[in-house]
């Protein structure tokens, strides 16, 4: 700009440039507009509305009534039953994230450190297939394995180590682990594969042991993968519906099922709205904590 000020003979240029820039900016706006409108109409406004409806009274059919406001549903979050369900959901989601990480990290590390690119790609495809496979079908597989005639039940009975696990909390945990493990492995693999191994070698040259080099160099460098994987596992585990419904019983209700119940047999839409907002809030808080903690400790 200052350069142009020195050349008064070309005064028109900044104006023209500004005009072109403005036209370009409008073009960007109109390119986004259809998507913008669609998302405002079918995402943003519904999101605002569900928050408003969590303060609405309930009609006799369970639907929300606008115009009469109440804090009843938000107070209801303190009920022992609701608290149990909420904590169970958070606990299982946390446990699943932790175990996915413990199993997924060495697994992703193994794939990413194979020498031949063809081996790596082949193993990666083997991870991608379950990742893309239908989630319901993969959960159903566990339903049959854990049932009275299922293979896992038979093995457990033959060895005397466990009995029929279907409709218990361990069954839900296994289902969640099975369902979301690939979501952990893929970002971890991407992070480890892109790692600069010269840095690890440098650490070894400076007399760091294998373990120390891993802990001080490899692990911090793969942090983006750990964070992405953990979030990708934690969020759907927290809102899990299919898994606890098919593998769990009445005693293993999670937030996801509990919310759906409010809109169906529970006939309490405003409370369902409250729970839906709550689960979103928990997810956001957990994500923020995770980013903060991850930034500090890893």
């Amino acid at each position, binding site marked *: 700009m200052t350069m142009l000020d020195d050349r008064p003979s070309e005064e028109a240029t900044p104006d023209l440039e500004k005009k072109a820039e403005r036209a370009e*900016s409008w073009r*960007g706006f109109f*390119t986004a507009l259809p998507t913008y409108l669609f998302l405002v109409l*079918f995402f943003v406004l*519904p999101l605002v509305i569900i928050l408003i409806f969590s303060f609405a009274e309930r009609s006799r059919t369970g639907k929300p009534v606008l115009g009469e406001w109440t804090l009843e549903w938000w107070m209801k979050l303190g009920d022992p039953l609701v608290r149990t369900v909420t904590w169970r959901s958070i606990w299982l989601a946390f446990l699943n994230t932790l175990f996915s990480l413990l199993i997924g990290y060495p697994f992703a590390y193994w794939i990413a450190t194979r020498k031949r690119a063809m081996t790596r790609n082949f193993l990666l495809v083997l991870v991608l297939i379950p990742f893309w496979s*239908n989630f319901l079908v*993969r959960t159903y597989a566990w339903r049959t394995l854990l049932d009275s005639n299922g293979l896992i039940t038979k093995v457990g009975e033959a060895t005397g180590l466990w009995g029929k696990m279907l409709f218990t909390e361990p069954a839900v945990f296994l289902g969640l682990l099975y369902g979301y493990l690939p979501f952990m492995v893929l970002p971890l693999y991407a992070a480890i594969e892109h790692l600069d191994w010269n840095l690890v070698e440098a650490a070894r040259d400076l007399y760091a042991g294998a373990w120390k080099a891993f802990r001080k160099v490899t692990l911090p460098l793969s942090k983006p993968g750990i964070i992405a994987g953990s979030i990708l596992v934690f969020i759907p585990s927290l809102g899990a*519906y299919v898994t606890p419904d098919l593998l769990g019983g009445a005693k293993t209700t999670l937030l996801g099922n509990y919310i759906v119940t409010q809109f169906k047999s529970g006939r309490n839409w405003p409370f369902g709205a409250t729970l839906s907002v709550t689960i979103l809030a928990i997810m956001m808080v957990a994500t923020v904590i995770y980013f903060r903690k991850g930034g500090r400790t890893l």
Partner: protein
Amino acid sequence: MSVQQGTAHRKWVDRVLSVNGWFVFGFLYLPILILVIYSFSDDRIVGIWGGFTWKWYDRMFSNPEMMKALANTVKVGVVQTVFATVLGTMAGIALDRYRKWLGKQAFDVILYLPVIIPEVTMGAMLLIWFTQVLPIDLSIYTIILGHIAFSTSFVAIVVRARLANLDDSLEEAAMDLYANRWVTFRRITLPLIMPGVLGGGLLALTLSFDDVIITEFVQGPGATLLPVYVFGLIRRQVTPEINAVSTLMLAVSMVLVFISLGFQARTGAGKANKEA
């Protein structure tokens, strides 16, 4: 000597990692394999082998409700994928190729939210929005709208990533040669981002095919989709017929994986050529 110790140690670690790796693959694949095997078992109880049969597949294909759900799934999948791909691609272009425009920052946030929001929340809010606010009757169209609402963002992310890896010099060259914006887009930009667009579209199709929760919230009477229908069947009673339809669904997923890998391989080859 310490070097030898080091390699011995490394070998040992490597062996443990390999064993662990194949165990994890076993964990990932055995359940699916067993599920497929029992879809051919001539016994009503899944888990008891009763000899080979095709009868569960016959039964599946002659179940009118199942076939209607399948037809609906294809309809919703195709329509929502077309819309999500177009909307997502436009959003990706607007975000990557235009530096500044009215409401860009807000749009960036809005676009990423459907990716991270729990599915139950999304289903619940769409149900309230459709039935209590608009209000419209739930039908196959509300399912389509719901699916577009969550899959558009995924397409946009994939397309944007593709655009971010392409510099705009080719587009500039075309414009310098007096191609207008539309011609530049159709002849230069679109072919270059096509792998991203198709990859994003496949992702949208897979997500639509995978969804149970949102569909269960916003489906109308008699307009259910295959996954939700199968979900209902499993809840009532487990039969080998469910194994048969599951095997079919797995086969569809596999086909989608290999198509998407085909795109990626071609993109990778293109990139390698450019680098060489």
